[in-house]
């Protein structure tokens, strides 16, 4: 199957909060410190006491490639497109640096590159996909939380588990009833 048609599965159970995905992403897309731009971030949900048990969770975030992306609707120069395979892409050349998309994204996934002065975000490492290899965050994920899988595999893996689908990303947990 064509790699670009796969989905990103985030098995929240398996995220160990190590930040390998973040740095893998920054390296792959040359998001140096100076760009102040991050396409992938791991959030920490601090220890919470629920039903007399402490829970500490980690939550990787990146562009989920929404089904109906607000960033596309808002972009004044049509620099953002959703491809047939669902991948939402920002065109560097067309972007005028107005940052409207940054404010339009409720996931905080659109990131402004302070060096190149254009918006950018996760593209599932399209260049790698086209070359036949999985996204860098997926390859380097130590806990095995990030998986780039076919629709069929995704269904199989998440059977009986809690899931939350957003565009091309599916979050899954064996613990938390996830909210969409």
């Amino acid at each position, binding site marked *: 199957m064509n790699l670009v048609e796969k989905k990103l599965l985030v098995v929240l159970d398996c995220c*160990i*909060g190590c930040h390998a995905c973040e740095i893998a992403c920054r390296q792959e897309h040359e998001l140096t410190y100076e760009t102040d731009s991050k396409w992938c971030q791991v959030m920490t949900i601090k220890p919470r006491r629920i039903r007399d048990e402490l829970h500490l969770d980690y939550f990787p*975030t990146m562009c989920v490639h929404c089904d109906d992306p607000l960033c596309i609707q808002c972009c004044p120069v049509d620099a953002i497109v959703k491809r047939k395979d669902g991948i939402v892409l920002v065109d560097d050349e067309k972007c005028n640096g107005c940052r409207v998309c940054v404010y339009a994204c409720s996931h905080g996934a659109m990131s402004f590159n302070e060096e190149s002065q254009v918006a950018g975000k996760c593209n599932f490492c399209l260049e790698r996909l086209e070359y036949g290899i999985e996204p860098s965050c997926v390859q380097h994920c130590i806990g095995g939380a990030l998986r780039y899988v076919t629709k069929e595999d995704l269904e199989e*893996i998440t059977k009986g588990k809690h899931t939350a689908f957003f565009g091309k990303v599916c979050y899954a947990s064996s613990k938390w009833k996830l909210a969409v």
Partner: protein
Amino acid sequence: MSKDNILCKRCGTPIVLPKNIKDILSKAEISQTIKWDELLHLCPRCRAQTFAERTIGGDLQKVVRNWPLPKRRSEERKSIRFDKRMGATVYKSQCYICNSGCDALVYEKEGKVIKVEGDPSSPITKGSLCCKGLASKEQLYHRDRLLYPMKRIGKRGEGHWQRISWDEALDTAAERFKEIEKRYGPDSIVLATGTKRGTWCDYFMRFANAWGKQFTSTGWAQCAIPRQLAGLMVLGGYAAECPDFSNANCILIWGTNPANNWPHHALSMMERWAEGIPLIVVDSELRETSSKADIWLQPRPGTDAALGLGFLNVIIHEDLYDKEFVEKRCLGFDELKARVQEFNLDEVEKITWVPKDKIREAARLYATRKPACLMHSCAIEQNADTISSCLATVMLTAVTGNLDIPGGNLFPMFKDIRGRGDLEYTLRQLITEEREKNIRGSTEYPLLSSNACMLYPSAHNATLWKTILTGDPYPIKGMYIHACNLLVNVANSRQVEEALRSLDFILAVDIMMNPTVELADILLPATTWIERDEVASHHQASYNAIQIGQTVVRLGECRTNYAIINELAKRLDIKHMFPPESDEPFFNFLLEKIGLTWKELKERGGYYFPNVYKKYERNGFNTPSKKVELANSKMKNLGMDSLPRYLEPDESPISTPELAKEYPLIITTGGRVSIFRHSEGRNIPILRDLMPHPLMSIHPLTAEELGIKEGDDVVVETPRAWMEAKAYLTEGIHPKVVQLPSHWINEYNVNMVMDNERCAPYIGSAQLRCQLCRVKRKK
């Protein structure tokens, strides 16, 4: 942009809203999945956090954790030489950003390293690499790299340097060392090194032995020696260091956080965990690894030995031990049985603060869900009796019969490659009785500093500083520091600094400027892992692989560790060392007995020893009795208590109740984070960005009592000194404990406040996990 700036509702940073915000909102309103009110009130970063919190929610509905996850991409083990996508040459190498030694690929294009990635063909890492490793390029090209030999031109520590040639640097160093030796005697020069990377420490020991000098390290008494020595004495090998996660049916993690600092271990652990295998974690704070635990035991810091004895008590008295294995393969069981009698769970609960039911549940699970593997690390090596806590964890693998079986703990397969056990390599026989006597600490801490130490007989830090400062029993005037940030990484930093400043001459080798090398007279630039060849087989990386490092580029005039040391050896007329021109003869020497050469190994991309389980069936265990010695003969012969016992920390609410009134909190330190390795990495901006400040973990109730809020600057005082940090409020820590991150510099250096006077018996570990402090908000 509109002028009506608003502040982010979560973090308070100003948000500049675009002019057409209304337009965006009207579009957002029609989209049901978007909580449009957030757009107005949160900055982009807080939106990601809010998204995470909203999605995960608080509705706990546990289902079976058994993920049928596909295996990772793992190619045939062949070297990829060229990457068409990037047009780059690919070098198969081994990442030494820390000492985990993960397989890695380095991509080079037109003489520049453009990328460092995990190696998908590696069965050890399966393509993964941690954030530090992925940032290796940032270290390689860092502006603070040392690239040329330099000499100090101002006062010591003033920061004025002048570039000199290698010849001048080495000649000067050799000359100064010779002068010092002539004037003050052979013991007036000491050596120091840091974490093992590759076979480095073994080679350094060879050099020290060939030169006839003692050497010290940043902290082997606090990391590595107690647990590995306990393994050697009881099991006759390093099995307790090599958990076979992939085949285990139960995993016990004790005093370590592999998610943060043993990435390849974390990978196999998580693979198995995701299949539903139960995980038991002993950690004083709810952190990355303990957050995954099915049973999390939160002991009072420093009480691991008592907890270990509690485990053994349950296992022995409930008859859960492996009778056949114990009868046939172990000695000293009755003595152990008598000892654990003293540690009934009521007693253990009182000491450790861990509820006895939880201890029982964990011990039963570990002993009965076979095969089970155990991983332990340095948290148990920094308390009042470190050898005891290590003996206890090490023997758990034996009494449960989990030794050298698939899914248990495995003895490494490195029989034929030369390593620290090979006298021809380490030249340990050159440490004569007379020399041994002069190693500082050899009388008080024989398991660390005398020939009784089966790893590296090395000088005891605190004893050494005192000798330097007092000249008693002999003067020490010169020091050769190779890759070792003593000023940051060793307890009682003030004393360390005073000692170093009092020396006549310091030669330092490092890859970057740091507080320690700033005190040097001559500075030599070493290569980072990307700039050197390496042959490494060590059980922290893999239990059966020889991995290779390859030179990809070379910056400035830096040289490999081996070359530097060999150049020095040549000038000091030290025998037994290798020619400085190339590291190859040395690598060939390492590989000699396997019948491989460096060139062949490089061509193959590494080497795997065939897997053999239950190796003890053939020749027994590598102990004097050829059995597992639960009451080990080594310590017995030295007149020591050879069984694990429990000593209360020298400073604690129990041993020093008066002091505890003034200093009511237990300070524990040394917990690793994933983004930095010891004192390294804080100058790499993309890593530092993830943790700009040292964060002190404190329970919200304790913080409230003290008037401390999240992110407040705090002052931590011990009876010795003070330091600063920022408050991180977490329910994951006991209200009577604060956790301070280690390895930060200046006023954030926790080693400023830690005592190094009272050390663990026999082995001299500083009690870094369990001292007393008080905390207040910084005014």
